[in-house]
Protein backbone atom coordinates (compact mmCIF):
# COMPACT_ATOMS: atom_id res chain seq x y z
CA UNK A 1 0.00 0.00 0.00
CA UNK A 2 2.71 2.46 1.00
CA UNK A 3 4.74 1.45 -2.05
CA UNK A 4 1.73 2.06 -4.34
CA UNK A 5 1.17 5.50 -2.81
CA UNK A 6 4.87 6.42 -3.04
CA UNK A 7 5.16 5.42 -6.70
CA UNK A 8 1.92 7.32 -7.43
CA UNK A 9 3.26 10.40 -5.64
CA UNK A 10 6.60 10.34 -7.45
CA UNK A 11 5.11 9.91 -10.93
CA UNK A 12 2.24 12.36 -10.50
CA UNK A 13 4.60 14.84 -8.83
CA UNK A 14 6.91 14.67 -11.83
CA UNK A 15 3.93 15.14 -14.16
CA UNK A 16 2.53 18.08 -12.18
CA UNK A 17 6.03 19.58 -12.06
CA UNK A 18 6.22 19.49 -15.85
CA UNK A 19 2.74 21.06 -16.09
CA UNK A 20 3.91 23.84 -13.76
CA UNK A 21 7.02 24.10 -15.95
CA UNK A 22 4.87 24.79 -19.00
CA UNK A 23 3.08 27.58 -17.12
CA UNK A 24 6.35 29.00 -15.80
CA UNK A 25 7.94 28.84 -19.25
CA UNK A 26 5.12 30.61 -21.10
CA UNK A 27 4.16 33.18 -18.45
CA UNK A 28 7.28 33.47 -16.31
CA UNK A 29 10.21 33.43 -18.73
CA UNK A 30 9.34 36.79 -20.37
CA UNK A 31 9.46 38.40 -16.87
CA UNK A 32 12.85 36.82 -16.15
CA UNK A 33 14.16 38.06 -19.51
CA UNK A 34 12.92 41.58 -18.69
CA UNK A 35 14.56 41.49 -15.25
CA UNK A 36 17.89 40.19 -16.63
CA UNK A 37 17.85 42.90 -19.31
CA UNK A 38 17.45 45.50 -16.55
CA UNK A 39 20.18 43.83 -14.50
CA UNK A 40 22.62 43.87 -17.42
CA UNK A 41 21.78 47.48 -18.24
CA UNK A 42 22.37 48.47 -14.60
CA UNK A 43 25.64 46.49 -14.50
CA UNK A 44 26.89 48.14 -17.70
CA UNK A 45 25.96 51.54 -16.32
CA UNK A 46 27.64 50.96 -12.96
CA UNK A 47 30.85 49.51 -14.33
CA UNK A 48 32.48 52.90 -14.66
CA UNK A 49 30.97 54.77 -11.73
CA UNK A 50 30.39 52.20 -8.99
CA UNK A 51 33.49 50.04 -9.52
CA UNK A 52 35.71 52.41 -7.56
CA UNK A 53 33.70 52.72 -4.32
CA UNK A 54 33.03 48.97 -4.31
CA UNK A 55 36.71 48.04 -4.42
CA UNK A 56 37.33 50.64 -1.73
CA UNK A 57 34.81 49.12 0.70
CA UNK A 58 36.07 45.59 0.04
CA UNK A 59 39.70 46.59 0.34
CA UNK A 60 40.97 43.12 1.20
CA UNK A 61 39.34 41.71 -1.90
CA UNK A 62 40.99 44.00 -4.38
CA UNK A 63 43.99 41.68 -4.53
CA UNK A 64 41.97 38.61 -5.47
CA UNK A 65 40.06 40.69 -7.96
CA UNK A 66 43.14 41.18 -10.10
CA UNK A 67 43.99 37.47 -10.04
CA UNK A 68 40.50 36.61 -11.28
CA UNK A 69 39.90 34.17 -8.44
CA UNK A 70 38.22 33.88 -5.05
CA UNK A 71 35.21 35.98 -4.20
CA UNK A 72 35.74 38.43 -7.03
CA UNK A 73 35.51 35.82 -9.78
CA UNK A 74 32.57 34.03 -8.21
CA UNK A 75 30.63 37.24 -7.82
CA UNK A 76 30.98 38.22 -11.46
CA UNK A 77 29.84 34.72 -12.42
CA UNK A 78 26.58 35.02 -10.52
CA UNK A 79 25.90 38.46 -11.89
CA UNK A 80 26.39 37.70 -15.56
CA UNK A 81 23.79 35.00 -16.04
CA UNK A 82 24.74 34.07 -19.55
CA UNK A 83 28.35 33.16 -18.74
CA UNK A 84 28.30 29.71 -17.12
CA UNK A 85 25.05 28.39 -18.55
CA UNK A 86 23.44 29.95 -21.61
CA UNK A 87 19.96 31.44 -21.32
CA UNK A 88 18.61 28.77 -23.68
CA UNK A 89 19.96 26.01 -21.43
CA UNK A 90 18.55 27.77 -18.37
CA UNK A 91 15.11 27.80 -20.00
CA UNK A 92 15.38 24.04 -20.61
CA UNK A 93 16.72 23.70 -17.06
CA UNK A 94 13.46 25.26 -15.88
CA UNK A 95 11.62 22.06 -16.81
CA UNK A 96 14.32 19.97 -15.14
CA UNK A 97 13.97 22.08 -11.99
CA UNK A 98 10.16 21.98 -11.79
CA UNK A 99 10.10 18.28 -12.76
CA UNK A 100 12.62 17.23 -10.09
CA UNK A 101 10.91 19.55 -7.59
CA UNK A 102 7.63 17.74 -8.36
CA UNK A 103 9.30 14.36 -7.97
CA UNK A 104 10.72 15.24 -4.54
CA UNK A 105 7.56 16.98 -3.30
CA UNK A 106 5.31 14.24 -4.68
CA UNK A 107 7.28 11.55 -2.85
CA UNK A 108 7.22 13.36 0.49
CA UNK A 109 3.52 14.17 0.01
CA UNK A 110 2.68 10.52 -0.67
CA UNK A 111 4.40 9.35 2.53
CA UNK A 112 2.69 12.09 4.55
CA UNK A 113 -0.60 11.06 2.91
CA UNK A 114 0.03 7.42 3.91
CA UNK A 115 0.54 8.57 7.51
CA UNK A 116 -2.51 10.86 7.59
CA UNK A 117 -4.86 8.38 5.90
CA UNK A 118 -7.45 7.16 8.38
CA UNK A 119 -5.98 9.31 11.17
CA UNK A 120 -6.66 12.94 10.20
CA UNK A 121 -8.87 14.61 7.62
CA UNK A 122 -11.57 13.46 5.21
CA UNK A 123 -12.35 9.74 4.96
CA UNK A 124 -12.32 9.53 1.19
CA UNK A 125 -8.86 9.23 -0.33
CA UNK A 126 -9.70 11.66 -3.12
CA UNK A 127 -11.01 14.29 -0.69
CA UNK A 128 -8.00 13.77 1.59
CA UNK A 129 -5.64 14.23 -1.38
CA UNK A 130 -7.27 17.54 -2.35
CA UNK A 131 -7.47 18.76 1.27
CA UNK A 132 -3.84 17.81 1.95
CA UNK A 133 -2.59 19.46 -1.26
CA UNK A 134 -4.57 22.62 -0.48
CA UNK A 135 -3.27 22.70 3.08
CA UNK A 136 0.31 22.09 1.92
CA UNK A 137 0.02 24.95 -0.60
CA UNK A 138 -1.22 27.30 2.12
CA UNK A 139 1.36 26.23 4.73
CA UNK A 140 4.50 25.66 2.65
CA UNK A 141 3.98 28.13 -0.21
CA UNK A 142 1.58 30.95 0.72
CA UNK A 143 2.83 31.50 4.30
CA UNK A 144 6.53 31.95 3.33
CA UNK A 145 5.49 33.90 0.21
CA UNK A 146 3.57 36.50 2.24
CA UNK A 147 6.64 37.23 4.40
CA UNK A 148 9.42 36.62 1.87
CA UNK A 149 7.88 36.97 -1.62
CA UNK A 150 9.66 35.61 -4.69
CA UNK A 151 12.07 37.96 -6.41
CA UNK A 152 13.11 38.14 -10.07
CA UNK A 153 16.78 38.18 -11.06
CA UNK A 154 18.39 41.60 -10.36
CA UNK A 155 16.55 41.81 -7.01
CA UNK A 156 18.42 40.51 -3.98
CA UNK A 157 21.91 40.89 -2.55
CA UNK A 158 24.09 37.80 -3.24
CA UNK A 159 25.80 38.34 0.14
CA UNK A 160 22.59 37.66 2.08
CA UNK A 161 21.52 34.50 0.23
CA UNK A 162 22.22 32.18 3.20
CA UNK A 163 20.35 34.38 5.66
CA UNK A 164 17.41 34.73 3.29
CA UNK A 165 17.31 30.98 2.67
CA UNK A 166 17.31 30.24 6.42
CA UNK A 167 14.53 32.79 7.04
CA UNK A 168 12.54 31.29 4.19
CA UNK A 169 12.94 27.78 5.65
CA UNK A 170 11.97 29.12 9.08
CA UNK A 171 8.75 30.48 7.57
CA UNK A 172 8.01 27.06 6.03
CA UNK A 173 8.49 25.58 9.51
CA UNK A 174 6.08 28.17 10.92
CA UNK A 175 3.51 27.23 8.25
CA UNK A 176 3.79 23.51 9.06
CA UNK A 177 3.71 24.08 12.82
CA UNK A 178 0.66 26.35 12.52
CA UNK A 179 -1.10 23.66 10.50
CA UNK A 180 -0.40 21.11 13.22
CA UNK A 181 -1.73 23.52 15.87
CA UNK A 182 -4.84 24.20 13.77
CA UNK A 183 -5.56 20.50 13.22
CA UNK A 184 -5.09 19.74 16.92
CA UNK A 185 -7.38 22.64 17.81
CA UNK A 186 -10.06 21.52 15.34
CA UNK A 187 -10.02 18.03 16.85
CA UNK A 188 -10.29 19.21 20.43
CA UNK A 189 -13.03 21.86 20.00
CA UNK A 190 -16.57 20.62 20.59
CA UNK A 191 -19.74 22.38 19.48
CA UNK A 192 -20.13 21.74 15.75
CA UNK A 193 -18.60 23.31 12.66
CA UNK A 194 -19.50 26.88 13.68
CA UNK A 195 -17.15 26.61 16.63
CA UNK A 196 -14.59 24.27 15.08
CA UNK A 197 -13.77 26.11 11.85
CA UNK A 198 -13.20 29.60 13.28
CA UNK A 199 -11.10 28.06 16.05
CA UNK A 200 -8.98 26.16 13.51
CA UNK A 201 -8.51 29.21 11.26
CA UNK A 202 -7.56 31.36 14.24
CA UNK A 203 -5.12 28.70 15.50
CA UNK A 204 -3.46 28.80 12.07
CA UNK A 205 -3.42 32.56 11.50
CA UNK A 206 -2.26 33.74 14.94
CA UNK A 207 1.13 31.91 14.98
CA UNK A 208 1.74 32.92 11.36
CA UNK A 209 1.08 36.60 12.09
CA UNK A 210 3.18 36.54 15.27
CA UNK A 211 6.11 34.88 13.46
CA UNK A 212 5.81 37.36 10.57
CA UNK A 213 6.04 40.26 13.01
CA UNK A 214 9.00 38.77 14.90
CA UNK A 215 11.16 37.63 11.95
CA UNK A 216 13.24 40.33 10.24
CA UNK A 217 12.05 41.73 6.93
CA UNK A 218 14.01 41.60 3.68
CA UNK A 219 13.89 44.58 1.37
CA UNK A 220 16.54 44.39 -1.33
CA UNK A 221 14.66 45.81 -4.31
CA UNK A 222 17.06 48.18 -6.08
CA UNK A 223 16.04 51.81 -6.58
CA UNK A 224 14.16 52.32 -9.80
CA UNK A 225 13.23 48.67 -10.34
CA UNK A 226 9.80 48.75 -12.03
CA UNK A 227 7.05 47.98 -9.50
CA UNK A 228 4.86 46.49 -12.23
CA UNK A 229 7.51 43.97 -13.24
CA UNK A 230 8.12 43.04 -9.59
CA UNK A 231 4.38 42.52 -9.02
CA UNK A 232 3.94 40.53 -12.23
CA UNK A 233 6.91 38.32 -11.42
CA UNK A 234 5.70 37.63 -7.90
CA UNK A 235 2.18 36.76 -9.06
CA UNK A 236 3.61 34.52 -11.79
CA UNK A 237 5.83 32.76 -9.27
CA UNK A 238 2.88 32.17 -6.94
CA UNK A 239 0.90 31.05 -10.00
CA UNK A 240 3.57 28.47 -10.86
CA UNK A 241 3.22 26.95 -7.41
CA UNK A 242 -0.58 27.14 -7.60
CA UNK A 243 -0.55 25.30 -10.94
CA UNK A 244 1.74 22.67 -9.45
CA UNK A 245 -0.30 22.05 -6.29
CA UNK A 246 -3.68 22.23 -8.04
CA UNK A 247 -2.66 19.77 -10.74
CA UNK A 248 -0.83 17.51 -8.29
CA UNK A 249 -3.73 17.41 -5.80
CA UNK A 250 -6.26 16.79 -8.56
CA UNK A 251 -4.17 14.06 -10.23
CA UNK A 252 -3.39 12.35 -6.91
CA UNK A 253 -7.05 12.46 -5.86
CA UNK A 254 -8.22 11.27 -9.26
CA UNK A 255 -5.87 8.27 -9.19
CA UNK A 256 -7.00 7.41 -5.64
CA UNK A 257 -10.59 7.49 -6.88
CA UNK A 258 -9.72 5.27 -9.84
CA UNK A 259 -7.92 2.78 -7.58
CA UNK A 260 -10.93 2.65 -5.25
CA UNK A 261 -13.29 1.91 -8.14
CA UNK A 262 -11.09 -0.80 -9.63
CA UNK A 263 -12.41 -4.32 -9.00
CA UNK A 264 -9.02 -5.67 -7.88
CA UNK A 265 -7.88 -4.67 -4.35
CA UNK A 266 -5.66 -1.59 -4.49
Amino acid at each position, binding site marked *: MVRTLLVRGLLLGLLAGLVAGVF*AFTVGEPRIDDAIALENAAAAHEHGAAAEPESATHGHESGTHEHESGTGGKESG*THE*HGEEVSRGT*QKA*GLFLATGLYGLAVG*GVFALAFAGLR*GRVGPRSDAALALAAAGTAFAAVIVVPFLKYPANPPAVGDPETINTRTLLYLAMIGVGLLSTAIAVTTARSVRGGPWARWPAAVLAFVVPVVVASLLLPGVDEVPDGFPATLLWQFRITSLG*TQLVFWASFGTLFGWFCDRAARAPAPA
Partner: protein
Amino acid sequence: MSTLSARHIPLSHLVPWLLAVPALLLLGYLVLMDNGAVSQTGGYLHELMHDGRHLLGVPCH
Protein backbone atom coordinates in the same frame (compact mmCIF):
# COMPACT_ATOMS: atom_id res chain seq x y z
CA MET B 1 -13.72 0.61 4.96
CA SER B 2 -16.25 2.79 6.73
CA THR B 3 -14.43 3.29 10.02
CA LEU B 4 -11.42 5.54 10.29
CA SER B 5 -9.36 3.03 12.21
CA ALA B 6 -9.73 0.35 9.54
CA ARG B 7 -8.25 2.66 6.93
CA HIS B 8 -5.08 3.73 8.60
CA ILE B 9 -1.78 2.20 7.57
CA PRO B 10 0.04 0.71 10.58
CA LEU B 11 3.18 2.64 11.47
CA SER B 12 5.22 -0.57 11.18
CA HIS B 13 4.35 -0.63 7.45
CA LEU B 14 5.16 3.02 7.05
CA VAL B 15 8.50 3.33 8.86
CA PRO B 16 10.77 1.50 6.35
CA TRP B 17 9.56 3.78 3.55
CA LEU B 18 10.42 6.86 5.58
CA LEU B 19 14.05 6.12 4.68
CA ALA B 20 13.18 7.64 1.30
CA VAL B 21 12.46 11.02 2.93
CA PRO B 22 16.13 12.11 3.41
CA ALA B 23 16.86 11.21 -0.23
CA LEU B 24 13.83 13.19 -1.43
CA LEU B 25 14.76 16.16 0.74
CA LEU B 26 18.33 16.03 -0.60
CA LEU B 27 16.92 16.12 -4.14
CA GLY B 28 14.78 19.11 -3.21
CA TYR B 29 17.79 20.80 -1.65
CA LEU B 30 19.92 20.23 -4.76
CA VAL B 31 17.22 21.65 -7.02
CA LEU B 32 16.26 24.65 -4.89
CA MET B 33 19.09 25.66 -2.58
CA ASP B 34 22.49 24.18 -3.34
CA ASN B 35 25.17 26.63 -4.34
CA GLY B 36 27.93 24.09 -4.98
CA ALA B 37 28.66 23.13 -1.37
CA VAL B 38 27.05 19.68 -1.58
CA SER B 39 26.88 18.97 -5.30
CA GLN B 40 30.54 19.95 -5.90
CA THR B 41 29.69 21.26 -9.36
CA GLY B 42 30.55 24.85 -8.59
CA GLY B 43 27.65 27.01 -9.59
CA TYR B 44 26.60 24.74 -12.46
CA LEU B 45 23.53 23.15 -10.86
CA HIS B 46 22.52 26.51 -9.44
CA GLU B 47 22.73 28.19 -12.84
CA LEU B 48 21.02 25.29 -14.62
CA MET B 49 18.06 25.38 -12.21
CA HIS B 50 18.24 29.17 -11.98
CA ASP B 51 14.95 30.09 -13.70
CA GLY B 52 13.11 27.32 -11.92
CA ARG B 53 14.37 28.53 -8.54
CA HIS B 54 13.19 32.06 -9.17
CA LEU B 55 9.78 30.97 -10.47
CA LEU B 56 9.24 28.41 -7.71
CA GLY B 57 9.70 31.30 -5.27
CA VAL B 58 12.87 30.18 -3.48
CA PRO B 59 15.35 32.87 -2.41
CA CYS B 60 18.01 33.38 -5.06
CA HIS B 61 21.03 35.68 -5.34
